[in-house]
C-alpha cells in the first residue's frame, strides 16, 4: 500500500488516521462526490426546474430525448428526467438506509456468534436459518397490513420489509470471517493480555473483517434498490423509484421497437451509484486496513 506510514502532527485516533488516508484516495473522493451530487440533484433539481413526475400527457408519449425532454417521455407522456430524479430520492434513501441498518444488525449479530463460537454460535445461527425459511412474501404482506391505506408510498414499511432479510446473509458472512479470525495469534494475544471481549471484537477482530463487510454492503445498496421493485409488485413499493422504472422499462426490451431511454436512464443512474459506492468501498477498505497502519 502506498499510503504514508506515519503522519506528522500529534497522536490521533486510528479512525482519524483512516479518514486522512481516505481523503488521499482519489477514486474514493470522486465516488463520494458523485453520490453527493446525485443526492443533491435528486432532491433539489425537480424543485428548481419545477418538474412534475406524474404529469401525464398521453399525446406526447414515447418521445426520444430532446431539448424539451432531455431524457425523453414514457408511454403516457411523463417526463423521464423528472421521474428518474424524483425516483432517485426514494431509491437512494431506501438503499442507503436499509443497507446501513442491515450492516449494523448483521455485523453485530454475526460477530457475536462467530466470536463466542460453539453453542452460542449454534443457537444464534439456528435462528438465522429459521428466518431464511419463513416465506418472505407473507412477511411483506403482513408488514403492509400493519400500515394504513394512506401510509402507502411511505418509507418506513418498505424499509422494514427490505431490512428484514438483508441482514441474514451479512450475518452469516461476518460470522464466517470472525470464526476463522477468532483463533489467530493476535486475538489470542489480546485475550491473554486481559482485554475485554467487546474490546477485542471492536479493536482487533472487526477491523480485519471490514474489507468483506464493505464489499458486500456496496453490492447490497443496488440490489436493495432493485428488490424494492419486487415489493411494489406486492403493493408495498414506494410510489416512484429507480427499481420500478427499471422493471417498467423491461417492456422496451423487445424485437419490435425499443424505447431505449425508458430503461437506459434509471439503469445508468443505478449503475453510477454502484460504481461510486464501490470506489468509496475500496477506499474505505484500504484506509481501515489494520495492516497498513504501521
Amino acid at each position, binding site marked *: 500500500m502506498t499510503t504514508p506510514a506515519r503522519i506528522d502532527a500529534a497522536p490521533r485516533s486510528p479512525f482519524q488516521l483512516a479518514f486522512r488516508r481516505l481523503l488521499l484516495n482519489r477514486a474514493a473522493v470522486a465516488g463520494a462526490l458523485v453520490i453527493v451530487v446525485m443526492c443533491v440533484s435528486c432532491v433539489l433539481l425537480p424543485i428548481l426546474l419545477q418538474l412534475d413526475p406524474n404529469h401525464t400527457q398521453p399525446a406526447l408519449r414515447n418521445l426520444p430525448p430532446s431539448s424539451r425532454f432531455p431524457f425523453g417521455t414514457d408511454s403516457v407522456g411523463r417526463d423521464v428526467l423528472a421521474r428518474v430524479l424524483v425516483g432517485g430520492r426514494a431509491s437512494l434513501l431506501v438503499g442507503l438506509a436499509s443497507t446501513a441498518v442491515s450492516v449494523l444488525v448483521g455485523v453485530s449479530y454475526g460477530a457475536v456468534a462467530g466470536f463466542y*463460537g*460453539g*453453542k*452460542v454460535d*449454534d*443457537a*444464534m*445461527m*439456528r*435462528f438465522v*436459518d*429459521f428466518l*431464511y*425459511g*419463513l*416465506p418472505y*412474501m*407473507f412477511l411483506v*404482506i*403482513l408488514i403492509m*397490513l400493519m400500515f394504513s391505506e394512506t401510509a402507502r408510498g411511505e418509507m418506513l414499511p418498505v424499509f422494514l420489509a427490505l431490512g428484514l432479510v438483508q441482514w*441474514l*446473509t451479512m450475518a*452469516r*458472512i461476518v*460470522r*464466517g*470471517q470472525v*470464526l*476463522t479470525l*477468532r*483463533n*489467530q495469534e493476535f486475538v489470542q494475544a489480546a485475550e491473554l493480555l486481559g482485554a475485554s471481549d467487546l474490546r477485542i471484537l471492536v479493536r482487533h477482530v472487526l477491523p*480485519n473483517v471490514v*474489507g*468483506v463487510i*464493505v*464489499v*458486500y454492503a456496496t*453490492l447490497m445498496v*443496488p*440490489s436493495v434498490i*432493485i428488490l424494492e*421493485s419486487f415489493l411494489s409488485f406486492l403493493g408495498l413499493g414506494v410510489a416512484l423509484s429507480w427499481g420500478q422504472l*427499471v*422493471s417498467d422499462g*423491461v417492456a422496451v*426490451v*423487445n*424485437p419490435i421497437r425499443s424505447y431505449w431511454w425508458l*430503461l437506459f436512464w434509471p*439503469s445508468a443512474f*443505478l*449503475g453510477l*451509484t*454502484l*460504481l461510486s459506492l*464501490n470506489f468509496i468501498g475500496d477506499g474505505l477498505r484500504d484506509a481501515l*486496513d489494520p*495492516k497498513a497502519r504501521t
Partner: protein
Amino acid sequence: MIEALTLLFGLALLAATAWCPPRWTRILGSLLFGFVVGVVVRFSFGGAGGVVGGLVAAGVAFRFLPLLVLRRVVFLVPALVLLIFATTVLMYKAPGNPFANERASSPQVEAALRAQYGVPKNANQFFGIYMRRLLVEGTLGPSIKVQGRTVEQLIAPAFPVSLSLGLLALTLSVIFGLSLGVLAGLKRNSAADYLSMGLALIGISLPSFVIGATMMIVFSLWLGWLPVAGWGSFKHLVMPALALSLPSSAVIARLARSGIIEVMQQDFVRTARAKGLPESWVIGRHALRGAVIPVVSYLGPAAAAIMTGSFVVEVLFAIPGMGQWFVKGAINRDYSVVLGTAIVYFGMVILFNLLVDLAYAWLDPRVREERA
C-alpha cells in the same frame, strides 16, 4: 397472541437444542432420524416396514453418522414443525383466502371447497390437518389452484428442473466469479480487475429479467442460435443459466477479490513469500483458502436460493421449475403449496449451511480444532 407466545417458546426450544449434550444429541438425533425414515418408508412398505426401516435407520444413524450431522437433525425436525406452524399463522393473518375469485361465490360454495381441500377458517385447525396429512397420510396436501394434483406431484417434476438449472448456474458463477475475482485481487487495476467491476455493474444493477430479455433478442431473434424459451434440450438451458448466474457471479467475484487482497497482506503469506516459495504455491496453498471463506459463507444461502429456482427467470424463459411456486403459492394463497415450497427451501438452506460449516473446517484447520 397465543400464537406469538407459542412461536417464541418454540424458538427458545430450538435455540436450547444447541446445548443438548453430545450423548443426548446422538440418541435424540438417531431417534428423530429413524422416525423420519420410518414415516417415509411406511408409505411404500406399510406399517411393519416403516417400523423396521425406522429402527434400522436409527441404529445406523447412531453408529455411523457424525455428531455434526446429528446435531442438525436434532434441530431440523422440531424446526420444521415450528416453521410449518409459523408459516400457517402468517398465511392466515394475511388478507385474502384461496377461494376468493373475481366473481364472488356464495358462502356454500366456499364451505364446500374448504371441506374438500381441508382448509378450515382457523389457523390452528389447519395446522392440525396439515400435520396429520404429513405424518399419517404422507402427503403435502392438495394444491388448490392446480387442481387434481398434490403439492408433491407439483414439486416432484419441478424440483429436478430447478436443481439442474441451478447447479449449472451455480457452477458457472463459482468458476467464473472465483477466477475473475482472484485475478482481480492479485493484480489490482488490471484488465481482470476492471472486468470484475464491469461484471458487478451489469450483474447487480440490471435485474435478471432485463438481462434475460436482452439475451433473448440477441441470441434467438437476431442470431438465431438458441431457442427463445422452453425446456427440452441443452440449448434451452444456456440463456436461463447465464441470467441466473450473473448476479451471484458478480457478488462472488467482488468477495473473492477483497478476500485475496486481505489475505495477501497477512503474516503467513508474507512469511511464505519470504521463504522464497513459488508464487503459485503461495496462492494455491495458503492465500486461496483464506480468500474463499467469505465466498463460501455467501454461497450457503445463495446456493439454496438458486437451486430452488427463480420466479423471474422461470417465467421469462417458460421453464417448468420450482421457483414459480414460491410466488404463485403466496399470490394465490395456495396454503399447501406455500408450505411445501417453504419446507423444501428450508431443507436446502440447512443442507447448504451444513456444507458451509464443513467447508470452513476444511479450509481453515483452526476452525476444525475449535469445533471438535
